[in-house]
């Protein structure tokens, strides 16, 4: 499988703090990759760099072999990079279906026609049809007309994933999709990720490692801004460097 996205010597410094340091990261097309590491290890900063949230201090990012380091977020979405956020990020002042409108029109031919984007009702049957498809996929059809503010946190997370999927990305970046969810909600999201990983290239940041072990083919481990280990879940979890960064140095045997 060819690499979909690669970084070389990717570095991000915030004044005196180096959040990401000389990271060479790659994701193969069609693969599901997990990124794990202790709090503050630089996982979310890596996502921010890949998605264009802020520019790197040094290094390069390539997507399908083309440099994208200087591209703004909307240009990266156009290329096929979409992401969710650590804290659910949906539009609370809009209804559920209105949240889906912008995502479905981003990739629809009718959305590309400026006159239709400006002058056609967003409640046009063709637009509603697309919204219905996007929301059905994440089980939010019944809640479509509700204001997002009235949704549970779990439903907001499903909506966020739903509108990100509606962008039909080539690379989907999920930043702690299970954070803050109940066991029941975690099961829903894990089931959804299990379904979508067959259609998209997915990278997941997650602290609940046990929940994603069955979903990922490869794990990358970050610690103190560096990528310290990559490989299959079994290889990675048995690596002493990984055990050390989570549980500290093992006491020498007596």
């Amino acid at each position, binding site marked *: 499988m060819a690499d979909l996205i690669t970084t070389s010597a990717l570095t991000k410094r915030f004044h005196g703090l180096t959040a990401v340091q000389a990271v060479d990261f790659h994701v193969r097309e069609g693969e599901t990759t997990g990124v794990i590491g202790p709090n503050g290890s630089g996982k979310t900063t890596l996502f921010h760099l890949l*998605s264009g*949230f802020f520019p790197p201090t040094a290094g390069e990012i390539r997507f399908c072999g083309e440099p994208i380091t200087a591209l*703004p*977020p*909307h240009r990266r*979405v*156009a290329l096929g990079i*979409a*992401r969710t*956020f650590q804290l659910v*990020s*949906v*539009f*609370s*002042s*809009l*209804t559920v*279906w*209105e949240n889906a*409108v*912008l*995502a479905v*029109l*981003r990739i629809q031919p009718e*959305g590309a026609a400026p006159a*239709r*984007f*400006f*002058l*056609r*009702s*967003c*409640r*046009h*049957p*063709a*637009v*509603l*049809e697309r*919204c*219905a498809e996007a*929301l*059905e996929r994440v089980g939010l*059809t*019944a809640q*479509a*007309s509700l*204001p997002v503010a*009235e949704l549970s946190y779990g439903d907001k997370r499903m909506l966020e994933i739903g*509108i990100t999927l509606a*962008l039909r990305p080539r690379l989907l970046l999920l930043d702690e999709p299970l954070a803050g969810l109940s066991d029941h909600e975690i099961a829903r999201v894990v089931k959804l990720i299990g379904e979508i990983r067959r259609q998209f290239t997915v990278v997941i940041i997650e602290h609940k490692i046990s929940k994603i072990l069955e979903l990922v083919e490869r794990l990358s481990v970050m610690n103190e801004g560096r990528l310290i280990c990559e490989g299959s879940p079994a290889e990675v979890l048995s690596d002493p460097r990984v055990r050390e960064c989570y549980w500290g140095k093992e006491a020498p045997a007596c």
Partner: protein
Amino acid sequence: MSSPAPSSAFPVSPAPRGGLVRELALIAAGLVLLSFVIRIHWMADFAVFFILVLSFDLLYGYMGHLSFGHMLYFGAGAYGAALWLVYGNASALIALGVGMAVAAAMAALWGGIVLRTHGASFALINMAFNEIGHFLVQSPLAAYTLGEDGLSCSADPLFGVISLHEDRWAFVFTGSMLLAVYALLRVLTRSPFGILVRSIRENESRVQFLGYDTFRFKWVTFVIASTIAALAGALFTLVQGFVSPRVISPFGNVDVIFAVLIGGAGHLGGALIGAAVFLAIKNFLPVMIPELSRWLDVKLPQWELWLGIVLLVIVFSLRGGIVGTLRARWRKSRAVEAGA
């Protein structure tokens, strides 16, 4: 080819037909009724103010960008039309177009600068541009604008028969323009563009991660809002036949902001209701209070105090303005009914 209808289980139905026509008919009926209650001489001024408030609601209510410099574009429209009538020809329609074109060009240029700021910076940088415009018409351009003295101008009758100096025709023309502006804004705000603008108000950064160049859409919104404000300014010139630096004074922004806050920001109907309530307070209280004082034989405070009281009531008890609060209560009652 007809579009596929969404699944019957999907709880959002396509937009009902005829909604726009009903709303326009309601506004037209309201204007006609109002013209029987108050002197028709005032109606054109009211329609101009309604248009200005609608334009501000697009910028502030929908996109969340509070500007203290919106009067710059009202003034640009007013002075653009007046200067054309004095130094060009007396065609009302061309004067209208010139006023709007001048303001649109200014908004396109300044928009590229001011939209790189947010929040208080955006409000204040707009006020700074507004102050510059106010100063320019007062002093450096006084040879053309006649400075503080103001500029008198007169347009030929529209189509050779409709004189905008006649109160009735001025009301019909400005009222028609108000309906056209309302129709345009209703279409825009209910389109995907409208959802995009509301999304920018809530979280601009997140919109970029849906693949939209938010700066471009903010710029388009700014230019549309400014051009509509200029239409109001040009209409003011045609109806009044006179402009002075007062039309471009930043102090005028306060009236527009009050009107939008009273009615409810982010709702076209709210903007119109807020503008009507504001005009009622501003125009009728100064007349009613002396009458009431005489009748009660008590000296009542000036009308500005009552405006302040109305605003305090809205700020503390109707945070979404009149329409915003009513809509929130209606939604709440529907939710209670659905839960019962």
